[in-house]
């Protein structure tokens, strides 16, 4: 049985690391960049839309320079809140600024095999298996495509992946792996089949689409065209910047925020110019490149700060945020994974990012680990508990119980204790056993997490997808493969 989805809501505190003036400065810098430096939109369709709305378009270089007012007016048309609808209506997610939901990370290329423990290339069955475990876990609210179905043809891979997730979970799917117009059309058709037609899809968007920008200051043509198809169909669309200090962004964090923000708001404005009022979200996973190698790091204090700052930007534009947290650069579920995933998730949660991406991947979102997935859920549970804060009232001050126990003694046998003991956090994957037990058993949290994932895989039955939908999915995919 799939459990009720767990989310952070009504937080006891909220983190704001930028002042309103600083947010305004970043916004102004981004508008300045869009107007004077320009952003590359390598898609004739996108360039037509920009030109129709009075932006300066350099066709040879696909560079768009748009006045600040045009961007601001377009962004004002975006709806501030909407639902990410699930196949099972009980699992629909309100993106209303008062919820933090967790998804799976994506899109990895390898998997630590849950039976053998060997690292190997990911395939379709892995997409299905991860989706089934995610369907079971209450901490996971929605899916990204966790790993690439590399045994499927490249041209339709993104669609095979969607079928794998929908056949194994009734939760909302946000794909980051559909980035061509043809695939987007087919994905819309698949989503419409679930929702009950193209019209119904506008009310019940069971799919949302995330596209990456191409930092610095560029977009991908296929991504833009896929996003336009999705927006036309009423699917929520987001653009993610992964600008990185030193390489694809300036060395300074403010500069990298300004560059990434210019990419995201220009692409978002394009969607609003084409389809005013279409549901959109801000997406980001900025980082700092490694000073020694220039490589993507997947963690570090800059990531944590970006995680907290970006929700202030998306709040400023009054649209939901999908924020990169977790996604450690560590090679295995270890100390580094623990520190990176905990701090990134805490900072992004404390700023009330609407969606957190995501659990389960190692080595900068390359290698899937079920152990990491389960332990990431534990991190979210810890943060969830922290965000409840410390309620202070007559009942929680417990003066009566304190009087009864008095100096010395203990509170274990108090009625007050029985009533409130379940407020105390119970970890699943933290080792609190006596030293000698730990020594004798020789196991630990990673073993428990692996065992738990195996158990879920062996026993969890997701709410089945109607056979006729599966058949329809295969028909849609095959029709594209025949062309």
């Amino acid at each position, binding site marked *: 049985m799939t459990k009720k989805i767990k989310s952070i809501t009504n937080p006891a505190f909220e983190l704001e690391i930028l002042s309103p003036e600083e947010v305004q400065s970043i916004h102004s810098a981004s508008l300045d960049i869009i107007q004077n430096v320009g952003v590359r939109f390598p898609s004739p369709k996108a360039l037509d839309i920009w030109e129709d709305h009075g932006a300066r378009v350099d066709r040879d270089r696909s560079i768009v320079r748009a006045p600040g007012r045009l961007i601001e007016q377009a962004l004002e048309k975006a709806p501030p809140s909407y639902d990410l609808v699930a196949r099972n209506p009980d699992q629909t997610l309100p993106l209303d600024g008062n919820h933090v939901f967790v998804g799976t990370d994506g*899109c990895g290329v390898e998997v630590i095999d849950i039976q053998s423990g060997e690292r190997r290339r990911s395939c379709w069955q892995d997409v299905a298996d991860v989706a089934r475990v995610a369907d079971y876990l209450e901490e996971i609210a929605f899916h990204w495509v966790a790993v690439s179905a590399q045994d499927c043809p490249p041209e339709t891979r993104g669609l095979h992946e969607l079928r794998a997730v929908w056949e194994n979970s009734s939760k909302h799917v946000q794909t980051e792996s559909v980035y061509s117009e043809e695939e987007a059309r087919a994905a819309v058709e698949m989503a419409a089949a679930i929702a009950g037609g193209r019209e119904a899809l506008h009310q019940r968007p069971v799919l949302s689409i995330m596209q990456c920008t191409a930092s610095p200051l560029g977009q991908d043509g296929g991504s833009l065209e896929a996003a336009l198809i999705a927006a036309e169909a009423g699917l929520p669309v987001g653009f993610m910047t992964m600008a990185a200090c030193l390489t694809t962004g300036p060395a300074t964090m403010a500069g990298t925020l300004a560059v990434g923000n210019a990419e995201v708001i220009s692409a978002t404005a394009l969607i609003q110019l084409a389809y005013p009022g279409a549901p959109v979200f801000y997406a980001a996973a900025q980082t700092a490149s490694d000073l020694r190698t220039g490589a993507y790091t997947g963690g570090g204090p800059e990531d944590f700060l970006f995680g907290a700052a970006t929700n202030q930007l998306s709040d400023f534009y009054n649209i939901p945020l999908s924020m990169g947290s977790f996604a450690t650069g560590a090679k295995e579920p270890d100390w580094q994974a623990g520190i990176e995933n905990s701090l990134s998730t805490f900072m992004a949660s404390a700023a009330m990012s609407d969606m957190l991406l995501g659990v389960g991947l190692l080595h900068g979102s390359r290698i899937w680990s079920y152990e990491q997935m389960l332990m990431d859920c534990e991190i979210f549970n810890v943060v969830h508990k922290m965000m409840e804060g410390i309620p202070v009232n007559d009942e929680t001050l417990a003066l009566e119980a304190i009087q009864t126990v008095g100096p010395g003694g203990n509170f274990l046998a108090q009625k007050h204790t029985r009533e409130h003991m379940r407020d105390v956090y119970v970890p699943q994957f933290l080792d609190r056993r006596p030293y000698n037990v730990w020594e004798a058993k020789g196991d630990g949290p990673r073993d428990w997490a692996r065992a738990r994932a195996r158990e879920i895989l062996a026993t969890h039955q997701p709410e089945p997808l109607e056979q006729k939908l599966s058949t329809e999915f295969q028909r849609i995919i095959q029709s594209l493969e025949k062309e």
Partner: protein
Amino acid sequence: MKTDLFQAMAQSIIDGDAEAAHRLAQQAIELSIDPLEAINEGFVAGVNHVGDEFACGAAFLPELVMAGEAMKTAVSTLEPEMNKRGTQREVLGKVVLATIHGDIHDIGKTLVGTMLSASGFQVFDLGVDVPIEAILAKAREVEADLIGVSALLTTTMSRQKELIRTADEKGLRPKIKIMVGGAPVTKEWVAEIGADGYSEDAIGAVKIARQLLGQPV
């Protein structure tokens, strides 16, 4: 006098100051100093210094890149004079670089190009979204020793395999070595497609390139 000039040349590379490097290179031409001597006694000393600093952890990647760019400027300023004298700078090898067809991600590939050219390779960077035929044609045209091809997406990564197959069919290997790179590339993938080498970062790529061409690392 010459020693001072050579020292200033080395310093311009260490400072990553392309303008100064250009000015000093011009000065050398005006003073009729052999351009090869200017490169080898002056500028290269700066490159070596930055390389040593990097190796012991005292310098960082941006310093290497800036030194590389300054070096490139100095060499291109001296090139007409070298041509006039009928001399040529010895290159470690010729490398054709590209991001494969269908893929527009270029940061890693560009960085590899900068590092290779700073290390003395002659680099022909064809940019992004480059068809396999165009890569192989360029490699034949310039008589390349090495091709480096990058992909960020699993959907475009498969074209690395296609490139290698096509190169084999045309009999271009083993004369031309092929290196691959990009975030989804693993050593297992490299083995499967039969590439000659790969690296996860740009510094490593220089090492692999040297190894493949049988040079001291």
